[in-house]
């Protein structure tokens, strides 16, 4: 089973080997309401933890996504260009935003696991 960690800013990272799949939590998509557009990063961009990496737009608000981990973007979820609603319907599955080759895997240690995040958002 893959390991999912959460940041206090409501991003999640799901670890698959050395690669982290990043998106926003189910809780976060509920708070934002209907997502109408996701501005994706470019593949190849090198990120430090905390860098602004994407923008998630609802009709009436735009929220910047800060990368919860450092590394290089190796893939982005092109499906969101046609169907941004995936972030609403399947935030932690098909609604992922980008995949990153982690440069510092220990950053995950500071993040919350499922139980801690559930606590955090309740």
């Amino acid at each position, binding site marked *: 089973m893959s390991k999912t960690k959460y940041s206090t800013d409501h991003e999640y990272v799901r670890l698959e080997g050395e690669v982290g799949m990043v998106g926003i939590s189910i809780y976060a998509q509920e708070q*934002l309401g209907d997502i*109408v557009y996701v501005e994706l990063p470019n593949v190849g961009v090198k990120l430090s933890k905390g860098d602004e990496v994407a923008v998630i737009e609802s009709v*009436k*608000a735009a929220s*910047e996504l800060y990368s919860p981990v450092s590394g290089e973007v190796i893939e982005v979820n092109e499906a969101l260009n046609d169907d941004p*609603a995936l972030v609403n319907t399947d935030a932690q599955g098909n609604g992922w935003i980008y995949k990153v080759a982690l440069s510092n895997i220990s950053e995950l240690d500071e993040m919350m696991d499922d139980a801690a995040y559930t606590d955090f958002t309740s």
Partner: protein
Amino acid sequence: MNMNSTGRPTRADKTSSSKNAEIKSAALLPDEPLLFEIGGYEHSGVDLFEVEINDEFLGGFERKTSLDLPGLSEPECLRHYVRLSRLNMSIDAGIYPLGSCTMKHNPRLNEKIARLAGFADIHPLQPVSSVQGALEMIDELALWLMELTNTSAVSMSPKAGAHGELCGMMAIKAALEAKGQGHRSIVLVPDSAHGTNPATAAFLGYKVRSIPANKNGVVDVEAVIAALDDDVAAIMLTNPNTCGLFEPDVIKIADAVHDAGGYFYCDGANFNAIMGLVCPGDLGIDAMHINLHKTFSTPHGGGGPGAGPVVLSKALAPFAPVPFVKKSGSDLSLIEHVNDSDSFGRLTAFHGQIGMFTRSLAFMLSHGKDGITQVAYDAVLNANYVRVRLQKVFSLAFGDQACMHEVLFDDSFLKGTGVSTLDFAKAMIDEGFHPMTMYFPLVVSGAMLIEPTESESKKTLDYFCDKMLELANDAIAGNVDRFKQAPKYAPLARLDETLAARQPKLKWTKS
């Protein structure tokens, strides 16, 4: 992420308002198809001579792409646009209490004056000797603006309020550079500010430093002092502010900013509350735009055109953009080039929104200085009257205090009712009102910002307040349906803004 969930629900709830289907459009509100569905490619409502031309001077650039522009005969055209017009709310048809937008009466004399051939049918580049009356008109309006603000310079060319902000902030930037202070990179903006303020600052490459409002809805001088340093270029402060309150510390704030080497840009969107009573020049402002379409009654026209002249302090005047009118004796000339002056440049082709100037000047001359003071008095009187009539049920955002020209409520009185500010606004539509400004300013939850303006009679205000109280009491009593289903009596039910944004359809195409 920054979890920016500010705003309001945007998707029409199909289950709650599907009952609307039984309410047919009234006989006077027919559905109107699109121009492209009723027009014809062979139709035209204009008679023109057919001419023979050859391609001698066309260089092979003749149009080959189809135009796809259907035409209408004159009667069809009138009917199309008259029928469409009936789907709009307007000030002439009822109170339009949009806070911060100042939907006051638009006198028809203004329209008549703007259409005089001597103003409407003159070209911006005809010889200055042939348009002395136009320059006199611009000069007279400039004089009124400087006199009412107690400033010594005004730049007339900005085309709208936000364009005026650019003008003022560019003058500030130029002045700082001239003083060797070009390193200053921060602009202070209160978090209640209109979105154009931070957008303007960012446009010019400044970083925005937010200043919080205190519990009374105004900015403390201490909060400004704490944010000031050698990197601050300016503060952009709206006064009266977007919460409808006069900033009591404004003079101290101006002094503190000046002492720190910065400038004071005042957003003059709400000048209508204090004109004839308080001169912004006396408050220490360096630049302030004046929305002629708010304060001086030019029509909003469904979203423009506006006009945003900017008054300037002596310190900034040398940096004003071209063009400007210069008076020597009775002779008026137009300075159109920067040459060796300190002017920061040009903000628009030609000379500004002349058609708005004529309207504003007609308004000023009609009111005179006594009337302009009365306008401010009545605007403030009306807002406070609405405040005291509603505040027993509605929740004032910043407690029981006098307001200026607009009154701000939050949504705490709706807590637990299941009715949101949006629902409430839509229910107002069913009562025949245009809703107030909602969800702005962002600093209070579910903001409801009501600006009646001086144009509303006591009878209208009483009726408005009666209905508002009835709605509020109904919400509190738990009668949620009328809110969730609203509007029921508008041409359309709530629109699906999510669909519009997810699958943008921005022009008509043959299906």
